[in-house]
């Protein structure tokens, strides 16, 4: 009689029927993320290779050709054209046909032969900072390496041999970096949208008003509404992980079950967000717009695309309020770094706290703005 979850079973039963009846929406919301996954997994590659390069070799001797071979072999540059004057070199860059122009001056090999410093001009199109950065790094490295080889020629080894080793994503594969983060955004999408819609739909129909006049308790109602979408979110997670592992070949270094376990508080927070949205929105169109609000900060301030270190100091604390921040650390941690619970319990705890906070605010708003309105 005084069960605070009164009505949970009935609402769960009904909600499951809604989901089954509206299989189209379900299918759509489950496959959309996979589509995003294909876009990000296959089409987007942040490792810059084969930058279009134009070359003006005014020197033409053996030394200059050796240097150009080194550029070509680096895989970073792709020589599309050789020109014979400065004007053409500039022109191709301005036209956007090439992003890098290499000019070897007429006295290059002479200077080298006379043990003098030889200059090479590398023009870089700065309109895309990541392309430019990569071009600068690689060209500087080639120059440095070339110089060292000439200076130490006969000696067996360099004095200092720095050997950087990339951990966790040795091939610098983009899918490895993107997909674990994308998981967070996709789950947020699916669960927040579905919950918000399922409640706002009842507002529109007037059935919510009807439910309030029955002995259903608010907790029973909310839980009955949340749980089916928690299952759907969990199913989506399994789908994403399967695709990630077997289609995109992202190796999962940590424990999948730990990932599943730590996904629960994230889903909980995302669903609570959905309820919060539904307490504000009075139509499905309004809910749609509101549901996009949390997506943007989750994309930009969570470290999903841009490192959190690049967030302006003023906005940095904001990233602590975004559930995706913690969840992305969890997914990348388990999938890429093989982290275990001792590394990630704090993120899990943070998600639990955020979720509870969101649900409390949502329940209060729901009580004040929806029931008492």
């Amino acid at each position, binding site marked *: *009689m*005084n069960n605070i979850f009164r*009505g949970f079973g009935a609402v769960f039963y009904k909600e499951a*029927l809604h989901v089954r009846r509206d299989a189209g929406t379900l299918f759509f919301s489950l496959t959309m993320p996979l589509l995003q996954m294909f876009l990000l997994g296959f089409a987007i590659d942040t490792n810059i290779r084969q930058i279009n390069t134009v070359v003006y070799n005014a020197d033409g001797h053996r030394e200059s050709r050796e240097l150009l071979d080194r550029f070509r072999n680096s895989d970073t540059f792709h020589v599309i054209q050789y020109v014979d004057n400065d004007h053409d070199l500039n022109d191709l860059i301005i036209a956007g046909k090439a992003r890098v122009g290499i000019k070897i001056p007429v006295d290059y090999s002479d200077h080298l032969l006379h043990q003098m410093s030889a200059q090479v001009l590398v023009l870089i199109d700065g309109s895309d900072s990541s392309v430019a950065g990569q071009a600068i790094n690689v060209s500087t490295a080639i120059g440095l390496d070339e110089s060292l080889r000439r200076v130490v020629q006969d000696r067996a080894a360099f004095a200092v041999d720095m050997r950087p080793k990339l951990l966790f994503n040795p091939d610098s594969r983009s899918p490895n970096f993107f997909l674990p983060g994308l998981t967070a955004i996709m789950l947020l999408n699916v669960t927040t949208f579905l919950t918000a819609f399922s409640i706002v739909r009842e507002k529109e*129909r007037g*059935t919510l008003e009807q439910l309030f006049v029955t002995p259903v308790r608010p907790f029973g109602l909310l839980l009955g509404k949340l749980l089916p979408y928690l299952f759907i979110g969990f199913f989506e997670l399994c789908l994403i992980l399967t695709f990630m592992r077997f289609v995109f070949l992202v190796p999962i270094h940590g424990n999948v079950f730990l990932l599943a376990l730590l996904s629960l508080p994230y889903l909980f927070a995302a669903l609570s967000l959905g309820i919060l949205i539904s307490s504000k929105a009075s139509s499905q169109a309004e809910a749609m717009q509101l549901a996009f609000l949390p997506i943007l900060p989750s994309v930009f301030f969570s470290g999903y695309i841009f490192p959190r270190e690049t967030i302006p100091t003023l906005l940095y604390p904001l990233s602590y309020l975004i559930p995706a921040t913690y969840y992305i650390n969890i997914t990348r941690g388990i999938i890429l770094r093989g982290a275990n619970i001792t590394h990630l319990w704090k993120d899990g705890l943070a998600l639990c706290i955020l979720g509870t906070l969101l649900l409390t605010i949502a329940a209060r708003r729901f009580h004040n703005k929806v029931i008492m309105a």
Partner: protein
Amino acid sequence: MSGLSLPANGSAIVAENLSRKFGTFVAVNDVSFRVEKGEIFGFLGPNGSGKTTVIKMLTGLLPLSGGTAHVEGLDVRTSAEEVRERIGYMSQNFSLYNDLTVIENLTFYGRIYSLPTDQLKRRINEIVEVNGLGPYITRLAGKLSGGWKQRLALGCAMLHEPKLLFLDEPTAGIDPVARRQLWDLLFELSGHGITFFVTTHYMDEAERCSHVAYIYYGKLIADGTPNSLRELPDVNPQGTIRVEITTPEVTRALRSARELPGIRSATIFGQSIHALIDDSLSLDTLRHRLEDKSVAVAEIRPLAPSLEDVFVELTYKHQAALEANRE
């Protein structure tokens, strides 16, 4: 309307000095009424006059700003949960789930009230039979016509065998046949001791109620049986009688009638005019005066006030009192 300090046991609803304020706005102002078991209680009033607010307070959804309310003997301030167990509620838009079938809608509401499986089955069969829903049980609720939706909604509200049902404009947008069938059903159920609290804008429905009350901007200005309201002195001012003038040319007749001395008010009802006249004016004199203005008069006869007349008169009087207060 006053002196309701008797114990609340016998009545379905006892509201005493019920008030509700939203900020400085007084939505319900010192409203008292009593609904006996088995009555069909018609609760009328213009939109925005506080009908829904009263229902929300009686069903425990909205806290009371003042006064008390007992529903089925339970204080709504302390026992809202128990009240909701015992009442049924049907909203004007028949809050059904359109993507669920008839039987699924019934099953859902049955489970909400925690009916045990065998009892739920029995009740669903009874409801389906009483409402004639048999051929439609596997149809989606959204595919039903208005009348059937209404029957299903009523069925959902009655699954748990409540003794008191709140029906908020149950016949809005329903065809006349379905409307009559619903009222037949209400009479039958009220014969079994079930109480109905019905809001409506239809005067013919108000006439069918065994007890009506009229709320006007938060104030209850009429409360009683339809017949007792018709006899109120405010509705029948001393020295006046109400007549029905039947004429083939109502529009012109109305214009002429309003110009005649001794006619206090006149309004058109179909092929006739309802007028309130001085009782010093005999019916024959009235006929002659109208015919002098070349208005053909078929018949003039005395008339008892309709409920609409009652509510219109009371509203005017109440407005006048409000304005007098303001000055």
